[in-house]
């Protein structure tokens, strides 16, 4: 059977927290993004609203960057957390980036929320942003492209701090009980960067994260975002192997089956984790080998 290898990202409104859920829980924003108990409560209600298999945290893409020094405007129930002023504005200042501290701030609360959800027997997805996405929340991407030409060493050091920080988050997330680490680098795809920059930088950094974390996952798995896996596949960083699954189950149920029945499979993806509550058009889970 021929499986459609090309992944198309369909941006959907599941980025928003449903108004109904906001009303039902009575949780205020931006508080909801900052306290473990509220994060966990909201995650469960969102899961119920979408009839989903998993509770997913966090609800924004800024937690990692914030822990590395990004200025984040917290927003309200309609407009979520987003980057304010860039944290680093010169090539030399990139030297100042320190590895992430998981014991403070929102990242600590998100990890605690994972623990709370696990204790309540929830199946937990921890969303983790990729190196380029985090980089572009810390600095103007323009600065990155300039720095790559003028001072590769500083760039390598900066990005290796980000890569190591991502690995730390994933390790801790697994330890706290996340069954799935949803990993994607939407700001650093082949389509944006072109083959050279992708191969030499973005793809290489994402590959490095996967290589470093592969043996430390225990019974958890990584779900690789479809745009990220498409880019990695086209350049040759990964191999995609289809595993046929039951066509009458949802994507989330299929992922659960893989976790329970296929211990040999550590990385899956080439699809959108946000479709976990839907039945699959193509009843296939993509096993990803690096």
């Amino acid at each position, binding site marked *: 059977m021929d499986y459609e290898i090309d992944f198309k990202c369909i941006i959907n*409104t599941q*980025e928003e927290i449903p108004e109904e859920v906001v009303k039902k829980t009575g949780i205020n924003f931006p508080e909801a993004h900052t306290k473990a108990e509220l994060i966990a409560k909201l995650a469960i209600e969102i899961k119920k609203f979408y009839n989903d298999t998993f509770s997913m945290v966090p609800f924004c893409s800024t937690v990692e960057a914030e822990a590395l020094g990004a200025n984040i*405007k917290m927003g309200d129930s309609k407009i979520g957390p987003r*980057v304010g002023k860039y944290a680093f504005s010169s090539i030399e200042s990139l030297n100042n980036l320190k590895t992430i501290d998981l014991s403070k701030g929102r990242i600590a609360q998100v990890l605690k929320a994972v623990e709370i959800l696990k204790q309540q027997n929830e199946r937990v997805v921890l969303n983790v942003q990729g190196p380029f996405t985090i980089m572009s929340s810390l600095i103007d*991407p323009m600065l990155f492209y*300039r720095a790559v030409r003028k001072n590769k060493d500083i760039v390598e050091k900066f990005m290796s701090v980000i890569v190591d920080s991502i690995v730390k988050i994933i390790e801790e997330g697994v330890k706290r009980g996340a069954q799935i680490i949803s990993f994607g680098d939407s700001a650093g795809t082949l*389509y*944006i960067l072109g083959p050279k920059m992708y191969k030499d930088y973005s793809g290489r950094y994402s590959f490095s994260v996967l290589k470093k974390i592969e043996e430390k996952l225990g019974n958890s798995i990584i779900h690789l975002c479809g745009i990220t896996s498409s880019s990695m596949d086209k350049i040759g960083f990964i191999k995609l192997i289809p595993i046929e699954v039951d066509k009458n189950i949802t994507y989330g149920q299929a992922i659960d089956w893989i976790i329970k029945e296929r211990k040999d499979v550590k990385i899956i993806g080439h699809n959108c984790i946000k479709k976990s509550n839907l039945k699959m058009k193509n009843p296939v889970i993509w096993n990803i080998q690096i």
Partner: protein
Amino acid sequence: MKDDLLKELSDSVLNMQEEETIEISKKCVENNTNAYEAIDKGLADGMNRAGKLYEEEEYYIPELLLCSDAMYSGLDILKPHLEKEETENKAKVVIGVVEGDTHDIGKNLVKIMMETEGLEVIDLGRDIPPIDFVNKAKEVGASIIALSTLMTTTMDGMAEVINLLKKEGLKDKISVMVGGGPISQSFADKIGADAYTLDASKAAKRAKALIKKQTAEII
């Protein structure tokens, strides 16, 4: 000799050579080359060639941004030497990313291509409340408001800008252009935008067409 210099200027922008672009721009000034011609047939020409390579998938976003770096460095040298009339009477575009969204590379590229086409672009930046677009457009006498977003959660802000313009009776005077990942022609039609374009080059050309139409209507 002049043509060689202009070709060199265009090449240095196309090849993302910032230092070289500055050097050649200085040479143009020393040789009394007409600043407008140097900008139009040198810098802007290089940027347009870069835009074509982008459409052909030879250049990607990093390359376009580095070309623009070179172009802007050249502009810094040449702009002070423009004749006064050449700096006035440029049609104005107010551009920005809608409130809640901070993805701005696309918006930056649109700004670059619009400036390459001879428009004056007032860039409000990212995460901009709808009312700020309207206020700025009024303040500077803009012909166009250009709105960008990459997130579905912020698309409503675009409709809000148009509603505010209608409330102030300005919808006929100021055209609204929209663009970005989740935007489509049907969304643009639904909210009453004047134009939707897929990429930076098309946006720049469409902006010029809209302004021509506006001018024709006044006459």
